[in-house]
């Protein structure tokens, strides 16, 4: 009977190695997190600053910087993934291979220790991953949104001021532009009936480009209400989508027919994703 106890598998070195690896893994992730925290805290005011300075209508300089920062964060994710693969998973598999069967008493103890180690490391990794996603959201939302409503109102005023100021290139008669156009269009001269080509200003053309974003900004509270509802209330989503498209059509009435098809598609897509 004593000889049985003597034969019992004993490997304190492995336990020590497990403890050490876990400690190293926790410190490693802690360092990555500190670095991430430091970078995003320093970057957020800079991002906002660049967004406000950026004269480009698409805010591309801000976009470049944001991409650079997100690249850094993804690099950290990549590093953590690699380290997890090498130092946790490979280590666990290699150690398991040397242990006695899990059904034996001693084997079970060590398998349990390995299992606990693996779970602790994974949980720590998930915490890290959550923080990483949190920082990504912070960076993406750092600059806020462009005040599209103000830009749109300004374009409307500009258009009201210039709509009577054009004359027919053929006969010189005054032409009043009948409505706000966002793309080049033919306008009839009321005197000689010549078809003049009216080319809207760059600002007016951008309204078409920003119309959906503006409509989304106007109806953001409805989307928020849907996202806050628990469980998700489909009626609220339909209300939001309808209101968003109504606003969109108000801004660009010419596209109402096409937008209606798009509305149906988005609604269907939403229902399909819901059923999954």
């Amino acid at each position: 009977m004593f000889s049985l106890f003597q034969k019992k598998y004993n490997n304190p070195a492995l336990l020590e190695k497990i403890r050490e690896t876990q400690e190293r893994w926790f410190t490693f992730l802690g360092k990555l997190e500190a670095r991430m925290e430091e970078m995003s805290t320093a970057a957020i005011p800079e991002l906002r600053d660049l967004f406000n300075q950026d004269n480009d209508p698409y805010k591309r300089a801000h976009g470049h910087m944001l991409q650079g920062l997100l690249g850094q964060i993804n690099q950290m994710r990549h590093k953590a993934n690699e380290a997890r693969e090498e130092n946790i998973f490979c280590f666990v598999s290699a150690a398991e291979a040397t242990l006695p069967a899990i059904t034996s008493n001693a084997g079970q103890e060590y398998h349990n220790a390995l299992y606990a180690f693996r779970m602790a490391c994974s949980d720590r990794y998930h915490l890290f991953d959550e923080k990483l996603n949190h920082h990504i959201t912070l960076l993406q939302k750092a600059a806020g949104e462009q005040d599209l409503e103000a830009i749109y109102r300004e374009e409307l005023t500009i258009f009201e001021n210039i709509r009577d100021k054009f004359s027919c290139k053929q006969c010189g008669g005054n032409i009043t532009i009948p409505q706000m156009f966002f793309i080049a269009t033919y306008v009839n001269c009321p005197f000689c009936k010549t078809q003049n080509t009216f080319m809207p200003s760059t600002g007016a053309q951008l309204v078409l480009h920003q119309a959906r974003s503006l409509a989304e900004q106007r109806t953001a509270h409805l989307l928020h209400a849907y996202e806050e509802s628990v469980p998700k209330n489909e009626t609220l989503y339909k209300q939001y989508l309808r209101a968003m498209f109504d606003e969109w059509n108000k801004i660009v009435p010419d596209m109402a027919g096409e937008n209606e098809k798009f509305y149906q598609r988005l609604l269907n897509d939403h229902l399909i994703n819901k059923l999954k």
Partner: protein
Amino acid sequence: MSQEENKRTLTYLERLKQKAATQENYGGEVVKEDAKMKVRDCPECGAGRAYQHGLTACAYCGFVFMDVKLTDGVHIKKENNS
């Protein structure tokens, strides 16, 4: 965080910001243009294109402005064919 590491982040951020701000965009700067009116009159006889005569050919001398057949678009309709 040590002083040195803090400095490293700052210089990295400054470099990134500067690079983002000075990087040339694909397609160049956006040039803001004012709204304008143009007309395409007939190069043969100088007549304008009137709505009721269509857009594809000159109603006076028959000069062909475009070979394509117009279809319904946002502002141009298929009735605009000459």
